[in-house]
Each structure stands twice: as C-alpha cells, then as structure tokens.
C-alpha cells in the first residue's frame, strides 16, 4: 500500500468530515475566483461598451448620470437640453460628427433611444459597427411627419419577441402612437443590444409636451472633434455655458474604476480573512482527525511503519483535501460567475464567465501549498506519537 492509498482510505473512513473540509476550501476558493472574475468582467464590460465618441454633452448635473444614462442606459436620463445646442455643435468647425440623443420611456424594460442615422454610421475611428440582421434602419423623417419606425437591438428583439412589421406600444397614452418594427440589429455586445431606436421626429411626436414646443428637446449630443487636441477647448466652452455640461466618457469611467479599486481592496481584505478561516478549519479538522486515530497510528508504527511514513500520510491527506477543494472551488467560481453574469446582463453589463484570470492558478497553487501546510502540525503530532503510550489497554 502506498502513502497515497492509505491517505485516501483514511479520508474515505471519515467521509463526512473530509467532504465538509473540501467543501469549505471550495467555498473559499470559489469566493475568490468569482470576485476576481466579476470585478474584471464588469471593468472589461465598461471598456468594451464605452462609446467611440469623445465627448457627451447634456444638461447640467451629474457627469456620471449623464454617461451611465446615455452610453450604458444604466441610469435615469438627465434633464433636457435644447435641440439648438445640437445644431450649433453640428456647425462648429472643430466638430467632425455630432449625434443627437433623446432618451424616453421603455418597452418591457428596453429603453427607447431617439437619434438619427449618424448614430449607426461607420467611421474610420469607430470600433463599433452596426449591421442589420433583418429589415432596414428607420427613416430620418421631418419633424412634422414622424414615421414611428423602430429598429430593435438584438437582445431587445429576442426578449420581446417582436418581428419586422409588428406594431407595439407601452401604456394606454401611447396607444395613439404605436411604433412599427422596421429593422433588427445584429448583436454589438454593448448597451445598444438592449435599446429600441427610432427617429427624433417620432420621439417628439409621441410626447405631448414636445409636440407643442417650438424648440424641441434633446437629452444629449455625442461629439467627435476633427482634431482631438480641440477636445479640451470644446469641453471648457460647453461647461462654462449656463445650460450645458460636457463630459469625457472615459474620464467618468476611470473615476468609476477608481471607486471600484477601493471596493476591490476592501474585498481583498475580506477574502484574506475568509482564506485564513478556511485554513484554520483545515488545520482543526486534520488535528482532531489525528487525535482521534492516535491508537491506529501507534498500531501502524508497531507494525513497522516509519515515523516519516506516518508524517507523509497526514500531509498527503491534507494535500488531497486542498487539491479537491481548490479545483472544485475554481470550477464552482466559474459556475457562480456564469449565473451572476446573466443577472448583470439584465442591467446592461455583459461579463464573460469563461474568462480565465491569471490569478486563478496562483490561487490554486497557494491553496494547495497552504492546505498542505495546515496539515503540518497534525502531521508532526502523528510523527511524535509514542507507540507504547497509545497502545496501552483502553480500560
């Protein structure tokens, strides 16, 4: 019988305790893995979903609300600005492309986004490209003659079950202005997958207040300057104005990342404490197991087993528990990340549960080493077991 076989037999002998120890290790490891995967996934999702436009112009208020609302559709829309702001920016020689955005209600939770065809245009500097899986884009209709045509993001179409030609509205007051599906976009892995797009004229036509206004409202304007070096001057001018604020979307996201880094530090401390508790549990479990079988160890020694063999058996036992718990924890962490990712997807963040983080092998090796180390004290205890003392009659 090899040391490994004996160790496995011992573990099998106290199956419940062994399983509980391995599960506690697995829970600790999966907590670390899921935290790492989700933190990285959320960050990468923000980076991937970030707009290609360098400046977002909206009403005075919170820059974070403006970016999260307009780019990621994760917050309420900021107050309106005037459509003339867009016209002025469109004619500014420093501006290459200006795209108007109007955010409104939602259909089954999928946000209405009013814009024009420039939103879907392809430019050399754009990373994101839009392609239709069915139908066509809505028409850039004149304000007096809205067409109420809608283009659905891939996920919005999939979840609502709407098809080309379907007419829909949400709320009785919208029954007079149903939207007609004319196109469905291919997936873009961004918040646009969960949006319902239509023209600004339809947006104004659907809203009772906007219908009566001479100067039409907008939520924001996305800006791409001709020269990026003009960005600070545009940013300053629009912020000094009493009506508007201009925000660098990447700046807002970097501020969010800074806040996430603080939360990650706190999480790392909590995970370290969890790790210590798990290791202490392994130590306690192995220690009590060794105390329980002092007599068996003494018998083994009396039958000729060397002290080193006894030491090896206990160390291999804790190593096996650490390996099983560690591997189970990594797999469990990915499984939890998969379910958590599907929950996050509903709020517009697409995380990848199959992502592999370089920290995972480090965590696994550390757990195996520390788990084995936690068995060292019980192993020494077994090593020092006196044969004569422990083979004495029980009564």
């Amino acid at each position, binding site marked *: 019988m090899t040391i490994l076989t004996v160790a496995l037999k011992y573990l099998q002998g106290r199956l419940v305790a062994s399983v509980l120890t391995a599960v506690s290790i697995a829970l600790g490891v999966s907590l670390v893995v899921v935290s790492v995967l989700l933190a990285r996934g959320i960050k990468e999702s923000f980076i991937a979903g970030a707009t290609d436009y360098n400046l977002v112009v909206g009403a005075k208020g919170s820059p974070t609300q403006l970016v999260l609302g307009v780019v990621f559709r994760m917050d309420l829309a900021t107050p309106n600005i005037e459509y003339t702001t867009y016209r002025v920016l469109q004619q500014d020689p420093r501006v290459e492309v200006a795209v108007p955005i109007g955010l409104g209600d939602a259909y089954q939770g999928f946000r209405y986004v009013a814009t024009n065809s420039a939103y879907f245009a392809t430019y050399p500097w754009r990373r994101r490209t839009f392609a239709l899986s069915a139908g066509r884009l809505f028409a850039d209709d004149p304000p007096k003659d809205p067409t109420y045509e809608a283009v659905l993001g891939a996920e919005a179409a999939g979840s609502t079950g709407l098809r080309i030609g379907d007419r829909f509205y949400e709320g009785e007051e919208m029954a007079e202005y149903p939207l007609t599906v004319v196109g469905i976009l291919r997936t873009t892995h961004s918040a646009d997958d969960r949006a319902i797009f239509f023209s600004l004229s339809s947006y104004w036509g659907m809203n009772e207040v906007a219908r009566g206004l001479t100067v039409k409202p907008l939520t924001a304007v996305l800006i791409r*300057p001709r020269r990026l070096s003009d960005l600070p001057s545009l940013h300053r001018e629009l*912020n000094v104005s009493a009506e508007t604020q201009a925000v660098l979307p990447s700046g807002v*996201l*970097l501020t969010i990342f800074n806040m996430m880094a603080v939360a990650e530090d706190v999480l790392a401390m909590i995970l370290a404490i969890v790790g210590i508790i798990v290791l202490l549990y392994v130590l306690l479990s192995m220690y009590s197991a060794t105390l329980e079988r002092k007599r068996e160890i003494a018998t083994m020694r009396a039958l000729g087993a060397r002290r080193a063999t006894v030491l090896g058996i206990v160390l291999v036992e804790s190593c096996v528990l650490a390996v099983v718990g560690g591997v189970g924890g990594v797999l469990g962490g990915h499984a939890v990340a998969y379910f958590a990712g599907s929950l996050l997807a509903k709020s517009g963040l697409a995380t990848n549960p199959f992502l592999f983080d370089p920290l995972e092998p480090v965590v696994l090796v550390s757990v195996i080493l520390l788990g084995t180390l936690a068995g060292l004290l019980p192993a020494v205890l077994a090593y020092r077991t006196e044969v004569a003392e422990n083979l004495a009659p029980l009564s």
Partner: protein
Amino acid sequence: MHRYRRLKRVIREFRVWRTATFFLLFVPSVLLAGPDEIPRLTFAQLVDSIRADSAVTESIKSYNGKEVAIQGFIVPAGPPDLSFFLLSRVSALGNYCCEAPVGQDETVYVFAEKEVRITYDPLRIFKIVGAFEAGMRSDPINGPSLFRIRNARVEEALGAKIFKVGEVPAPDTKP
C-alpha cells in the same frame, strides 16, 4: 610557512569582500542612474519648436525616436483603458479658473502598448516616458497630431511643475 598561508587567506577574503562591496554599491547606483539619462522635454520647448514657420524645428526633431520624459495632465480622450490619451499642459477640469485650454502645439498624443494602470486624477500631474515623435501626422483613428509619444510608461510626478513658454527648468532638474 604557516603565516604565509594565513596571509594568503586574508588577501583572498579581502578580494571577495571588495568584489561584494563593488556589486552592492556600484551596480545599484548604475541602475538608479539610468533614468537620469532620459532627456526631459517641456511644453515650453514644444511650443517654441513650432513658433518660426509652423513647422517643427530641427532641434525638437532631433529627439525623434529617442526616449524622452514629459510631464502634464492626462486628458482621457481615448478608450478608458488609457491605451491612448492626450497629455496637456492644462488640466481638462479647470472650468472656472486657471488658463484657457491649449491647442495642438501643447498637446502630446500618448500611445501605450497595453492598458495603463494608474489612479486617474484630472488634477494630478503625470510623468510620461516613451519614444518621442515630432511632425504633423494623421492617422484614421486619432486624427492629426503634431507630437506623439509611443510605448509610453506612465507614473505620477509628485511635486512636478509644468513649464510655460519663457520658463526653463533649472539646470539640476531631473526628469
């Protein structure tokens, strides 16, 4: 004879200690002295370099392809991983005070090979070290640029001063 052997051993030990002292004192000082050799450019130099006829002067072009250090404020004009950003003499967030924003002549287009991991602060000065390029060039993604730094490394420049036109760094100023 016995005394001669002892002397030999003392000499041998002395040599070992001398070599160890050399490595302990000299090698780290050489390694630490490395960054001093990187020339520091200032925004004042960049502005001066295109004063004459809107073309970049030969003096600033002589830095082309060489590693330089330059300090300024980060304007996150590119993706939020900061693999590309602008470095400006003026902060992007001084809306109601300070100086008016600067143009192409006081903006450096900074390219990093991968994501830059820093605690971003629009009001903090950062030191950028990388391969310098001067001269108008346009690329389809980032548009026209006059000054660029490629393969950039970014670090916080504690207590740094941004030099304007007419100001020069003190002779003992290190990057």
